[in-house]
Protein backbone atom coordinates (compact mmCIF):
# COMPACT_ATOMS: atom_id res chain seq x y z
CA UNK A 1 0.00 0.00 0.00
CA UNK A 2 0.18 1.83 1.95
CA UNK A 3 3.81 2.79 2.25
CA UNK A 4 3.44 5.67 -0.21
CA UNK A 5 0.15 6.87 1.26
CA UNK A 6 1.52 6.59 4.76
CA UNK A 7 4.61 8.59 3.79
CA UNK A 8 2.40 11.23 2.20
CA UNK A 9 0.28 11.32 5.31
CA UNK A 10 3.28 11.84 7.52
CA UNK A 11 4.53 14.64 5.30
CA UNK A 12 1.12 16.29 5.39
CA UNK A 13 0.92 15.83 9.14
CA UNK A 14 4.37 17.17 9.79
CA UNK A 15 3.86 20.09 7.43
CA UNK A 16 0.87 21.26 9.36
CA UNK A 17 3.10 21.30 12.34
CA UNK A 18 0.99 18.91 14.28
CA UNK A 19 2.36 16.23 16.47
CA UNK A 20 0.43 13.26 15.24
CA UNK A 21 -0.30 10.51 17.72
CA UNK A 22 2.47 8.24 16.65
CA UNK A 23 1.17 6.52 13.59
CA UNK A 24 3.42 3.55 13.16
CA UNK A 25 6.06 4.65 10.68
CA UNK A 26 7.21 1.19 9.76
CA UNK A 27 4.72 -1.55 8.99
CA UNK A 28 1.76 0.84 9.01
CA UNK A 29 -1.70 -0.58 9.25
CA UNK A 30 -4.98 0.44 10.81
CA UNK A 31 -4.29 -2.02 13.62
CA UNK A 32 -0.95 -0.43 14.45
CA UNK A 33 -2.50 3.04 14.08
CA UNK A 34 -5.16 1.99 16.57
CA UNK A 35 -2.65 0.85 19.14
CA UNK A 36 -0.55 3.98 18.73
CA UNK A 37 -3.64 6.24 18.93
CA UNK A 38 -5.01 4.63 22.08
CA UNK A 39 -1.55 4.45 23.70
CA UNK A 40 -1.08 8.16 23.05
CA UNK A 41 -4.23 9.12 24.94
CA UNK A 42 -3.59 6.69 27.78
CA UNK A 43 -0.14 8.18 28.25
CA UNK A 44 -1.46 11.73 28.00
CA UNK A 45 -4.27 11.12 30.49
CA UNK A 46 -2.91 8.38 32.75
CA UNK A 47 -5.57 8.84 35.45
CA UNK A 48 -8.49 8.25 33.10
CA UNK A 49 -9.63 4.60 33.11
CA UNK A 50 -9.58 3.39 29.49
CA UNK A 51 -13.34 2.86 29.25
CA UNK A 52 -14.03 6.33 30.64
CA UNK A 53 -12.87 7.97 27.40
CA UNK A 54 -16.36 7.40 26.05
CA UNK A 55 -17.54 10.09 28.45
CA UNK A 56 -15.55 12.75 26.65
CA UNK A 57 -15.41 16.02 28.55
CA UNK A 58 -16.71 14.39 31.74
CA UNK A 59 -13.61 12.24 31.90
CA UNK A 60 -11.55 15.44 31.82
CA UNK A 61 -13.18 17.72 34.38
CA UNK A 62 -14.73 17.09 37.80
CA UNK A 63 -17.17 20.05 37.91
CA UNK A 64 -18.52 19.06 34.47
CA UNK A 65 -18.78 15.44 35.58
CA UNK A 66 -20.88 16.39 38.61
CA UNK A 67 -23.30 18.36 36.42
CA UNK A 68 -23.51 15.44 34.00
CA UNK A 69 -24.22 12.91 36.76
CA UNK A 70 -26.96 15.19 38.01
CA UNK A 71 -28.55 15.33 34.58
CA UNK A 72 -28.10 11.59 34.08
CA UNK A 73 -30.36 10.83 37.05
CA UNK A 74 -33.05 11.17 34.47
CA UNK A 75 -31.36 11.22 31.07
CA UNK A 76 -32.68 13.92 28.75
CA UNK A 77 -32.61 11.48 25.82
CA UNK A 78 -35.29 9.36 27.47
CA UNK A 79 -37.96 10.82 25.19
CA UNK A 80 -35.83 10.04 22.12
CA UNK A 81 -35.38 6.46 23.34
CA UNK A 82 -39.08 5.92 23.94
CA UNK A 83 -39.98 7.46 20.60
CA UNK A 84 -37.19 5.54 18.87
CA UNK A 85 -38.40 2.19 20.18
CA UNK A 86 -41.92 2.87 18.97
CA UNK A 87 -40.67 3.96 15.55
CA UNK A 88 -38.28 1.03 15.23
CA UNK A 89 -40.93 -1.54 16.11
CA UNK A 90 -43.62 -0.11 13.85
CA UNK A 91 -44.24 -2.00 10.63
CA UNK A 92 -43.84 -0.41 7.21
CA UNK A 93 -47.01 -0.20 5.12
CA UNK A 94 -45.87 -3.36 3.33
CA UNK A 95 -45.79 -5.26 6.61
CA UNK A 96 -42.02 -5.56 6.93
CA UNK A 97 -39.99 -4.16 9.81
CA UNK A 98 -36.63 -2.43 10.30
CA UNK A 99 -35.45 -5.62 12.00
CA UNK A 100 -35.76 -7.51 8.71
CA UNK A 101 -32.96 -5.43 7.16
CA UNK A 102 -30.38 -6.09 9.87
CA UNK A 103 -28.55 -8.93 11.53
CA UNK A 104 -30.12 -10.06 14.79
CA UNK A 105 -33.29 -8.11 13.98
CA UNK A 106 -31.36 -4.84 14.36
CA UNK A 107 -30.74 -5.30 18.09
CA UNK A 108 -27.30 -5.36 19.65
CA UNK A 109 -25.48 -4.56 16.40
CA UNK A 110 -24.65 -0.85 16.64
CA UNK A 111 -21.09 -1.62 17.79
CA UNK A 112 -20.29 -2.91 14.28
CA UNK A 113 -21.06 0.36 12.47
CA UNK A 114 -19.90 2.04 10.30
CA UNK A 115 -19.39 -0.87 7.91
CA UNK A 116 -17.67 -1.17 4.57
CA UNK A 117 -20.10 -2.27 1.87
CA UNK A 118 -18.26 -4.23 -0.83
CA UNK A 119 -21.16 -3.87 -3.30
CA UNK A 120 -21.08 -0.08 -3.40
CA UNK A 121 -17.49 0.27 -2.23
CA UNK A 122 -18.72 2.83 0.32
CA UNK A 123 -18.87 3.14 4.05
CA UNK A 124 -22.35 2.65 5.49
CA UNK A 125 -23.16 4.32 8.79
CA UNK A 126 -26.02 2.96 10.89
CA UNK A 127 -28.16 5.95 9.88
CA UNK A 128 -27.51 5.34 6.21
CA UNK A 129 -28.37 1.68 6.77
CA UNK A 130 -31.69 2.70 8.31
CA UNK A 131 -32.47 4.82 5.24
CA UNK A 132 -31.46 1.98 2.94
CA UNK A 133 -33.95 -0.17 4.79
CA UNK A 134 -36.64 2.46 4.31
CA UNK A 135 -35.91 2.74 0.59
CA UNK A 136 -36.00 -1.04 0.24
CA UNK A 137 -39.47 -0.94 1.78
CA UNK A 138 -40.81 1.94 -0.28
CA UNK A 139 -40.41 4.63 2.37
CA UNK A 140 -38.80 8.06 1.89
CA UNK A 141 -35.43 8.61 3.58
CA UNK A 142 -35.23 10.39 6.92
CA UNK A 143 -33.10 13.43 7.73
CA UNK A 144 -29.75 11.91 8.72
CA UNK A 145 -29.06 14.42 11.48
CA UNK A 146 -32.00 14.50 13.87
CA UNK A 147 -35.66 13.83 14.45
CA UNK A 148 -36.99 10.33 13.85
CA UNK A 149 -33.61 9.08 12.57
CA UNK A 150 -31.83 10.21 15.75
CA UNK A 151 -34.57 8.58 17.84
CA UNK A 152 -34.49 5.27 15.96
CA UNK A 153 -30.70 5.06 16.08
CA UNK A 154 -30.72 6.09 19.75
CA UNK A 155 -32.92 3.09 20.44
CA UNK A 156 -30.88 0.70 18.28
CA UNK A 157 -27.66 1.92 19.93
CA UNK A 158 -29.12 1.51 23.41
CA UNK A 159 -29.55 -2.21 22.70
CA UNK A 160 -25.75 -2.38 22.33
CA UNK A 161 -25.04 -0.47 25.53
CA UNK A 162 -21.68 -1.53 26.98
CA UNK A 163 -20.73 -3.82 24.10
CA UNK A 164 -17.16 -3.35 22.84
CA UNK A 165 -17.01 -1.27 19.70
CA UNK A 166 -15.91 -3.52 16.86
CA UNK A 167 -15.57 -1.75 13.54
CA UNK A 168 -13.96 -3.90 10.87
CA UNK A 169 -11.68 -2.88 8.04
CA UNK A 170 -11.76 -5.84 5.67
CA UNK A 171 -8.85 -6.74 3.45
CA UNK A 172 -10.19 -4.65 0.57
CA UNK A 173 -8.19 -1.73 -0.82
CA UNK A 174 -11.35 0.41 -1.02
CA UNK A 175 -12.03 -0.10 2.69
CA UNK A 176 -8.47 0.77 3.52
CA UNK A 177 -8.65 3.84 1.29
CA UNK A 178 -11.80 4.99 3.06
CA UNK A 179 -10.11 4.57 6.44
CA UNK A 180 -7.07 6.51 5.25
CA UNK A 181 -9.25 9.26 3.79
CA UNK A 182 -11.03 9.58 7.11
CA UNK A 183 -7.75 9.78 8.93
CA UNK A 184 -6.46 12.42 6.56
CA UNK A 185 -9.65 14.47 6.99
CA UNK A 186 -9.22 14.31 10.76
CA UNK A 187 -5.71 15.74 10.64
CA UNK A 188 -6.25 18.33 7.90
CA UNK A 189 -6.85 21.96 8.71
CA UNK A 190 -9.91 23.62 7.26
CA UNK A 191 -12.10 26.68 7.50
CA UNK A 192 -11.39 30.31 8.22
CA UNK A 193 -10.27 29.34 11.70
CA UNK A 194 -7.87 26.88 10.08
CA UNK A 195 -8.43 24.15 12.65
CA UNK A 196 -8.27 20.45 12.05
CA UNK A 197 -10.36 18.06 14.11
CA UNK A 198 -7.07 17.20 15.79
CA UNK A 199 -6.45 20.83 16.78
CA UNK A 200 -9.24 20.56 19.35
CA UNK A 201 -9.54 16.85 19.99
CA UNK A 202 -5.88 15.90 20.10
CA UNK A 203 -3.86 19.02 20.86
CA UNK A 204 -6.66 20.69 22.82
CA UNK A 205 -8.09 17.58 24.50
CA UNK A 206 -9.00 18.31 28.11
CA UNK A 207 -8.51 22.05 27.67
CA UNK A 208 -11.22 24.66 27.98
CA UNK A 209 -12.62 26.33 24.93
CA UNK A 210 -14.65 29.11 26.55
CA UNK A 211 -16.90 27.28 29.04
CA UNK A 212 -16.62 23.90 27.38
CA UNK A 213 -14.08 21.20 27.96
CA UNK A 214 -12.76 19.58 24.78
CA UNK A 215 -13.24 15.86 24.53
CA UNK A 216 -10.31 13.74 23.40
CA UNK A 217 -10.56 12.07 20.00
CA UNK A 218 -10.43 8.68 21.69
CA UNK A 219 -14.03 7.79 22.47
CA UNK A 220 -15.32 10.84 20.63
CA UNK A 221 -18.11 9.13 18.69
CA UNK A 222 -18.88 6.40 21.24
CA UNK A 223 -21.79 8.17 22.95
CA UNK A 224 -23.79 9.08 19.85
CA UNK A 225 -26.60 9.69 19.10
CA UNK A 226 -26.36 12.44 21.58
CA UNK A 227 -28.75 14.74 23.43
CA UNK A 228 -26.95 18.07 23.45
CA UNK A 229 -28.28 20.78 25.74
CA UNK A 230 -27.29 23.32 23.07
CA UNK A 231 -29.57 21.54 20.59
CA UNK A 232 -32.31 20.83 23.10
CA UNK A 233 -32.72 17.51 21.40
CA UNK A 234 -30.93 14.43 20.07
CA UNK A 235 -28.62 14.35 17.07
CA UNK A 236 -26.37 11.97 15.16
CA UNK A 237 -22.63 12.00 14.51
CA UNK A 238 -23.18 13.75 11.20
CA UNK A 239 -25.14 16.51 12.90
CA UNK A 240 -22.08 17.19 15.03
CA UNK A 241 -19.66 16.96 12.09
CA UNK A 242 -21.66 19.63 10.26
CA UNK A 243 -21.80 21.79 13.39
CA UNK A 244 -18.04 21.46 13.92
CA UNK A 245 -17.36 22.43 10.30
CA UNK A 246 -19.55 25.51 10.70
CA UNK A 247 -17.84 26.36 13.98
CA UNK A 248 -14.43 26.52 12.30
CA UNK A 249 -16.06 28.45 9.44
CA UNK A 250 -15.61 25.68 6.93
CA UNK A 251 -18.17 24.76 4.31
CA UNK A 252 -20.03 21.74 5.69
CA UNK A 253 -20.53 18.71 3.48
CA UNK A 254 -23.79 16.97 2.67
CA UNK A 255 -24.89 14.68 5.50
CA UNK A 256 -24.32 11.54 3.42
CA UNK A 257 -21.06 12.73 1.87
CA UNK A 258 -18.19 10.33 1.41
CA UNK A 259 -15.96 12.60 3.49
CA UNK A 260 -18.21 12.29 6.56
CA UNK A 261 -18.71 8.56 6.11
CA UNK A 262 -14.96 8.03 5.92
CA UNK A 263 -14.31 10.31 8.89
CA UNK A 264 -16.84 8.44 11.01
CA UNK A 265 -15.26 5.14 9.89
CA UNK A 266 -11.85 6.29 11.06
CA UNK A 267 -13.09 7.71 14.37
CA UNK A 268 -15.26 4.70 15.18
CA UNK A 269 -12.40 2.31 14.37
CA UNK A 270 -10.16 4.25 16.77
CA UNK A 271 -12.74 3.46 19.49
CA UNK A 272 -12.46 -0.30 19.00
CA UNK A 273 -12.57 -2.04 22.34
CA UNK A 274 -14.30 0.83 24.12
CA UNK A 275 -17.89 0.26 25.27
CA UNK A 276 -20.82 1.59 23.26
CA UNK A 277 -22.07 4.52 25.32
CA UNK A 278 -24.88 5.85 23.18
CA UNK A 279 -27.24 7.49 23.45
CA UNK A 280 -25.35 10.08 25.45
CA UNK A 281 -25.90 13.52 26.98
CA UNK A 282 -23.59 16.48 26.50
CA UNK A 283 -23.62 20.25 27.06
Amino acid at each position, binding site marked *: MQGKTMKRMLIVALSIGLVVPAMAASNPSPASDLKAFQDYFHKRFPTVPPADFVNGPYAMNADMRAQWQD*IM*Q*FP*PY*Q*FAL*DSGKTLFEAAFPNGHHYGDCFANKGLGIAQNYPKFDPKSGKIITIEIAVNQCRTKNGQPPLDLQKGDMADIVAYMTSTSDGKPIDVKIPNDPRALAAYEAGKEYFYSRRGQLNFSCASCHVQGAGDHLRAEVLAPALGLTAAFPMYRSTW*GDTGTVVRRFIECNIQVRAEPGKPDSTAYRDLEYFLAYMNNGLPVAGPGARP
Partner: protein
Amino acid sequence: MPGSILVRASANGGTTTVQALIHHPMDSGFVKNAEGALIPAHYIEVVQFAHAGKIVLTAFWGPAVSKDPFTKFSFKGGAAGDDISISWVDNLGNKDSVSSKIM
Protein backbone atom coordinates in the same frame (compact mmCIF):
# COMPACT_ATOMS: atom_id res chain seq x y z
CA MET B 1 -49.90 16.95 25.00
CA PRO B 2 -50.43 13.38 26.21
CA GLY B 3 -47.49 11.23 27.17
CA SER B 4 -45.33 14.19 28.11
CA ILE B 5 -44.58 13.05 31.66
CA LEU B 6 -42.02 10.42 32.61
CA VAL B 7 -41.92 9.62 36.30
CA ARG B 8 -39.89 7.36 38.54
CA ALA B 9 -41.01 7.10 42.13
CA SER B 10 -39.48 4.74 44.64
CA ALA B 11 -40.28 4.16 48.31
CA ASN B 12 -37.49 3.46 50.74
CA GLY B 13 -37.56 3.46 54.54
CA GLY B 14 -40.78 5.44 54.80
CA THR B 15 -39.81 8.09 52.26
CA THR B 16 -40.80 8.24 48.62
CA THR B 17 -38.44 9.89 46.15
CA VAL B 18 -39.96 11.21 42.95
CA GLN B 19 -38.12 12.09 39.76
CA ALA B 20 -40.05 13.46 36.83
CA LEU B 21 -39.08 14.55 33.35
CA ILE B 22 -41.65 16.50 31.41
CA HIS B 23 -41.40 16.91 27.65
CA HIS B 24 -42.10 20.60 27.04
CA PRO B 25 -40.33 23.32 25.02
CA MET B 26 -40.39 25.86 27.88
CA ASP B 27 -39.95 28.64 25.32
CA SER B 28 -39.11 31.90 27.01
CA GLY B 29 -40.42 34.20 24.30
CA PHE B 30 -36.96 35.77 24.02
CA VAL B 31 -35.47 33.42 21.43
CA LYS B 32 -35.65 33.90 17.68
CA ASN B 33 -36.07 31.11 15.17
CA ALA B 34 -33.97 30.59 12.03
CA GLU B 35 -36.06 33.13 10.14
CA GLY B 36 -35.48 35.80 12.76
CA ALA B 37 -38.98 35.74 14.23
CA LEU B 38 -39.51 35.50 17.98
CA ILE B 39 -40.68 32.09 19.16
CA PRO B 40 -43.67 32.87 21.38
CA ALA B 41 -43.49 32.19 25.10
CA HIS B 42 -44.78 28.70 25.83
CA TYR B 43 -43.96 27.36 29.25
CA ILE B 44 -45.47 25.29 32.05
CA GLU B 45 -46.87 27.45 34.84
CA VAL B 46 -48.21 25.05 37.46
CA VAL B 47 -47.32 21.46 38.30
CA GLN B 48 -49.10 19.43 40.95
CA PHE B 49 -47.77 16.22 42.46
CA ALA B 50 -50.18 14.21 44.60
CA HIS B 51 -50.23 10.97 46.55
CA ALA B 52 -53.36 9.45 48.08
CA GLY B 53 -55.36 12.53 47.16
CA LYS B 54 -52.94 14.78 49.03
CA ILE B 55 -50.79 17.33 47.23
CA VAL B 56 -47.15 16.61 48.00
CA LEU B 57 -45.62 19.36 45.88
CA THR B 58 -46.86 22.37 43.95
CA ALA B 59 -44.44 23.95 41.50
CA PHE B 60 -44.77 27.38 39.96
CA TRP B 61 -42.52 27.73 36.95
CA GLY B 62 -41.48 30.60 34.74
CA PRO B 63 -39.77 30.49 31.36
CA ALA B 64 -36.38 30.24 33.08
CA VAL B 65 -37.00 26.60 33.86
CA SER B 66 -35.05 24.49 31.35
CA LYS B 67 -36.58 22.75 28.38
CA ASP B 68 -37.83 19.24 29.18
CA PRO B 69 -37.93 20.15 32.86
CA PHE B 70 -36.66 17.75 35.47
CA THR B 71 -37.84 17.69 39.08
CA LYS B 72 -36.69 15.61 42.00
CA PHE B 73 -38.08 15.72 45.53
CA SER B 74 -39.08 13.42 48.39
CA PHE B 75 -41.97 13.10 50.80
CA LYS B 76 -42.67 11.02 53.87
CA GLY B 77 -45.03 8.19 53.29
CA GLY B 78 -45.93 6.23 50.22
CA ALA B 79 -45.32 2.56 49.59
CA ALA B 80 -44.59 0.42 46.58
CA GLY B 81 -47.78 -0.02 44.58
CA ASP B 82 -49.30 3.30 45.60
CA ASP B 83 -50.26 5.73 42.89
CA ILE B 84 -48.58 9.07 42.46
CA SER B 85 -50.06 11.64 40.14
CA ILE B 86 -48.54 14.55 38.28
CA SER B 87 -50.36 17.17 36.31
CA TRP B 88 -49.31 20.39 34.63
CA VAL B 89 -50.85 23.35 32.88
CA ASP B 90 -48.97 25.85 30.72
CA ASN B 91 -49.41 29.52 29.83
CA LEU B 92 -51.35 28.60 26.68
CA GLY B 93 -53.79 26.42 28.57
CA ASN B 94 -52.35 23.08 27.46
CA LYS B 95 -52.28 20.39 30.08
CA ASP B 96 -51.30 16.83 30.73
CA SER B 97 -51.37 14.47 33.63
CA VAL B 98 -50.30 10.98 34.53
CA SER B 99 -50.72 8.53 37.32
CA SER B 100 -47.87 6.14 38.02
CA LYS B 101 -47.07 3.46 40.58
CA ILE B 102 -44.43 3.91 43.24
CA MET B 103 -41.82 1.15 43.01
